[in-house]
């Protein structure tokens, strides 16, 4: 289970999270929606200890992430796959090496690594792209490699930061289907940050809206579609006023 407990985070005078609390249950896919710049990525980065909270804590499997020593933090990170917004592939490494990087760190033998790389690339429908380089791939393909890199680690949790932002509708649908497939195949718990409502409805079990540093509402997809909260309504319906 991943649990945000009353998280506070500011950058200088800019307060981003102000009492952010949310529980992600095992097996579910939690979607966090919110305006650009509302702090969704910041919240996500706290889960893997890329950012330190000013106050509050993120608990992953009973452990408070910000208090962990390097060894403990590494163990937590090994249970989490992180899919970055623009995929964050390493330009100097081939697709296969990108996917293998995390596995090499765990000192698996090369045969096992190769098998896992192929399996992961097959799962994202990118078999045969092993030797290509990130610069030769389209945006959608890069995202899929990013997903492959995360699932190759066989994590218990996968965090997706805006997996469909900047993609055309068809490619977005492909990514949505992949996220659903990944979850069915690996039984992972997911946290998906997005402002793409179609994607949120497709992949989410529950949806939480981050607004002014806090969770404004968290509920199932059906419930949130019926919400009375004007702020949430405006966002999910995409109205200007």
């Amino acid at each position, binding site marked *: 289970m991943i649990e945000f407990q009353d998280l506070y985070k500011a950058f200088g005078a800019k307060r981003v999270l102000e009492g952010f609390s949310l529980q992600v249950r095992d097996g579910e896919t939690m979607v966090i929606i919110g305006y650009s710049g509302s702090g969704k990525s910041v919240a996500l*980065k706290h889960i*893997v200890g*890329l950012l330190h909270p000013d106050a509050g804590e993120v608990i992953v499997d009973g452990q408070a992430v910000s208090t962990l020593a390097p060894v403990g933090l*590494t163990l937590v*990170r*090994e249970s*989490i796959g*992180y899919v*970055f*917004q*623009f995929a*964050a*592939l*390493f*330009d100097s490494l081939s697709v296969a090496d990108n996917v293998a*990087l*995390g596995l090499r*760190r*765990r000192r698996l033998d090369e045969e096992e690594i190769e098998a896992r790389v192929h399996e992961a690339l097959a799962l994202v429908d990118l078999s045969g792209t092993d030797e290509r380089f990130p610069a030769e791939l389209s945006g959608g393909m890069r995202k899929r490699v990013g997903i492959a*890199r995360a699932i190759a*680690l066989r994590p218990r949790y996968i965090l997706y930061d805006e997996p469909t932002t900047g993609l055309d509708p068809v490619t977005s649908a492909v990514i949505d289907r992949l996220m659903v497939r990944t979850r069915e195949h690996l039984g992972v718990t997911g946290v998906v940050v997005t402002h793409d409502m179609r994607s949120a409805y497709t992949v989410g079990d529950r949806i939480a809206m981050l607004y002014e540093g806090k969770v404004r509402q968290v509920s199932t997809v059906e419930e949130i579609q019926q919400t009375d909260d004007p702020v949430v309504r405006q966002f999910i319906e995409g109205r200007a006023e």
Partner: protein
Amino acid sequence: MIESIGRRSISAIEEVGRVGYFLRDMARGLRDVGTWGRLVIVQMRRIGVDSLPVALFIAAFTGVVLALQASYTFTGAVPLYFVGTLVGKTMMLELGPVLTGLALAGRVGASMAAELGTMKVTEQVDALETLAYDPQSYLVVPRVVAATFMFPVIVAFSIAVGIVTGWLTSLALLALSTPDFIKGLKLFYLFKDVWFGLLKSASFGFTIALVGCIVGLSTRGGAEGVGRSTTRAVVYSAILILVLDAFWAVVLL
């Protein structure tokens, strides 16, 4: 006014503190030889390929100018074979290390800052961390170690080239014979000249790479931020090279 001075000194102190933390983390990263060992070779090759042409180009012309200026300055009052002494000493002690250092601050330092800056703003550095790599041992240590060891090598070549072009110039334009040039070269030669120059070069290499990495990894704000970091890395390391140069002169000469 006082307030602004106060604010500036606080931010300067913070800056020094950050460099301190960075050095501590780098020292920790140094222990993970398994990770950085392989990568050092890659970086050394890159630094060599990137820098040698520029460094040798500069050294070649410096040698020519040194020889001509020496003879011009001597105006016949000083025996001409001192041209060899001046070319040798100046290349080894000062111009070899410093000119190469300044040129490579613009090349090696800038490219490190741009590369790490791009990795930072595209979240590749974050990605490394989530894959359980320490950016210090994966990115910083290989670059700093490689630069520290490669710079003296590059400078050694520069010194040699500078002396050779100085000698050729003396032969062609100054009516100085080869034995005389060598006599001048040997005259006040001390082994210290060589190690002093190379030690200085190592310290410049260390500084350039360190600044490039620190500035690169603290990049914020997209492509524009990368541009800013690149410029900052060059300016900071150029200043630090000149300060270090004076420091070594005071301490060791």
